[in-house]
């Protein structure tokens, strides 16, 4: 049982694919396309998530504008009703530099408490859950993605993908840069920080960098920053490696339509939805998953759902 919690099941023997008669649309007695398109307009989780994301980001703004002391600071570092919260990659860079300079001993207890609190919180709610439920750039990027998908559909542009391992190059690279230059280099390029601070403290010239990236994502490579670059996302994906809250996949409800992979930010994590790939009746989506719920919304057979990993074992 414990083994199931830790393993993705990727290196096991695949299950036998379902026959045509066993597919969900056949069982329901409707045509495949009718079955597949049934939930095309369902946006339940996306709307809940956007609502939460906008609420939290506006809470920062309102808190400062009206001096409410509810959620102070920005996404780089904040205080929620007096409790400190730290951005983990920012903290990681700072720790890397300050352990070489000896500054590490000066960091306040609030810093450590804030860092541990946020790590624990997002460990429970699924690491990169931060990306889709908190990050304001993720929201903007989703809008750019709509433009991108439209252009691809109209055959104006060609889809470009890169190796997903790039994000590790950036993660290590930015950490090294921080240590070498003794400067939080990434913080000056950080989409999350720039957008968050622009909302709270007023726009700055660096919004042009955000705009440039959004245009690049719209016209060249889909979700480039979130998929291949952002080391904050990578940090969260490490944190979320063993998170209990995850998207659960049930093979018996799957019709191999691949609608979920089409909407997914990290389709490689949904490897088991393809015919003949699943190795278990139940799979949990891996650590790059942002728990955004787009696949849950779109899945015609309701084979994908939010779940608490290991809950069935406890019950």
């Amino acid at each position, binding site marked *: 049982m414990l083994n199931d919690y830790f393993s993705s099941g990727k290196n096991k023997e695949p299950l036998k694919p379902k026959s045509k008669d066993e597919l969900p649309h056949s069982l329901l007695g409707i045509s495949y396309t009718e079955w597949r398109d049934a939930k095309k307009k369902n946006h339940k989780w996306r709307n809940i998530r956007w609502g939460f994301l906008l609420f939290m980001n506006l809470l920062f703004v309102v*808190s*400062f504008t009206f001096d409410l002391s509810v959620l*102070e*600071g*920005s996404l*780089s*570092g*904040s*205080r929620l009703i007096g409790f*400190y919260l*730290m*951005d983990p990659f*920012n*903290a990681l*860079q*700072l720790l890397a*530099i*300050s352990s070489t*300079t000896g*500054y590490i001993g*000066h*960091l*306040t207890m*609030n*810093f450590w408490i*804030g860092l541990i609190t946020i790590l624990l919180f997002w460990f429970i709610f699924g690491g990169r859950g931060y990306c889709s439920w908190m990050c304001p750039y993720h929201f903007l990027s989703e809008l750019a993605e709509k433009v991108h998908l439209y252009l691809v559909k109209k055959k104006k542009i060609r889809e470009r993908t*890169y*190796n997903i*391992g*790039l994000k590790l*190059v*950036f993660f290590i*690279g*930015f950490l090294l*840069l*921080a240590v*070498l*230059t*003794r*400067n*939080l*280099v990434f*913080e*000056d*390029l950080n989409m999350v*920080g720039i957008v968050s*601070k622009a909302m*709270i*403290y007023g726009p*700055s*010239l*660096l919004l042009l960098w955000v705009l440039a990236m959004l245009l690049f994502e719209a016209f060249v490579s889909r979700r480039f920053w979130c998929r*291949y670059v952002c080391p904050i996302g990578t940090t969260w994906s490490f944190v979320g490696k063993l998170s209990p809250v995850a998207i659960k996949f049930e093979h018996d409800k799957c019709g191999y339509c691949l609608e979920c992979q089409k909407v997914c930010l990290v389709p490689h994590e949904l490897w088991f939805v393809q015919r003949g790939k699943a190795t278990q009746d139940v799979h949990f989506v891996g650590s790059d998953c942002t728990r955004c719920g787009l696949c849950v919304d779109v899945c015609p057979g309701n084979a994908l759902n939010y779940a608490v990993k290991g809950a069935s074992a406890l019950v």
Partner: protein
Amino acid sequence: MEKKDSGLNRRNFLKSGLVATGALALAGAGAFMLDRNTVQARVRPDFLRPPGAINEKDFIYGCIKCGLCVQICPVQAIKLAKAGEGVAFGTPYINPRIQACDFSCDALQCVETCPTAVLNFKPFKEAGLAAVEKATQEAGADFAKVNPFEVQKVAMKQIVRMGKARVNTETCLAHHGLGFKGVSRGTDFRGIYRAPESANASASPLAEKQFDREVCNLCITECPIGPKAIVQEPSRSNGNLVPKVLDGCTGCGVCVMVCPTRETSIIVEPS
């Protein structure tokens, strides 16, 4: 088939990895230049680090640019540097000519709130506690009459060293024996401060205050630190009563904010 795929993948990865490394190197070079320029640009009168700032080299990486100090400041003296302002992007600074730090928060809240201690509260805390201890000892049997909060806040603000004020003798009104009457920075000036004689706990607009001085001495009378920081004394050259900055100056910049000449005649040189 599979073998060919993974080979392509590896080549693809190496290629984009190379591009990524190039991009990172570029970012690094940029940061290095920025760092050098900002440390040099640091010494200028319109740019003071908030109270308790540690040395600039550690400050640059230690500050995570969260803006908590900005948010807690009751007079909103602290701003985050924007791109193109010549100092490290996103780090906090005070331009005292626009809005000085007037200590009306009483307890150096920006320093206390800083999670990474680049605004270092430790020396202030120690100074405050030492002062309370000293005051209670001196009071002897009357120790209950000592208000620890008052003692603490006076002791804490006195050890702030954001810089030191310097008078420009060429433009200073007092150096020319001139007085000042009226509103010092015009009626539409937005800066606020808590004047030393004010009974209010909060700051009030400078624009609401009328001055009438035979010899201009605003920088002396409005100083939140008082005679330990700045006094009036006869000038050596012509005997006019002029301001003299002493070692007790905290560099808060209230004198810069209140100075009525068109260009300020007193500036704070960052420490």
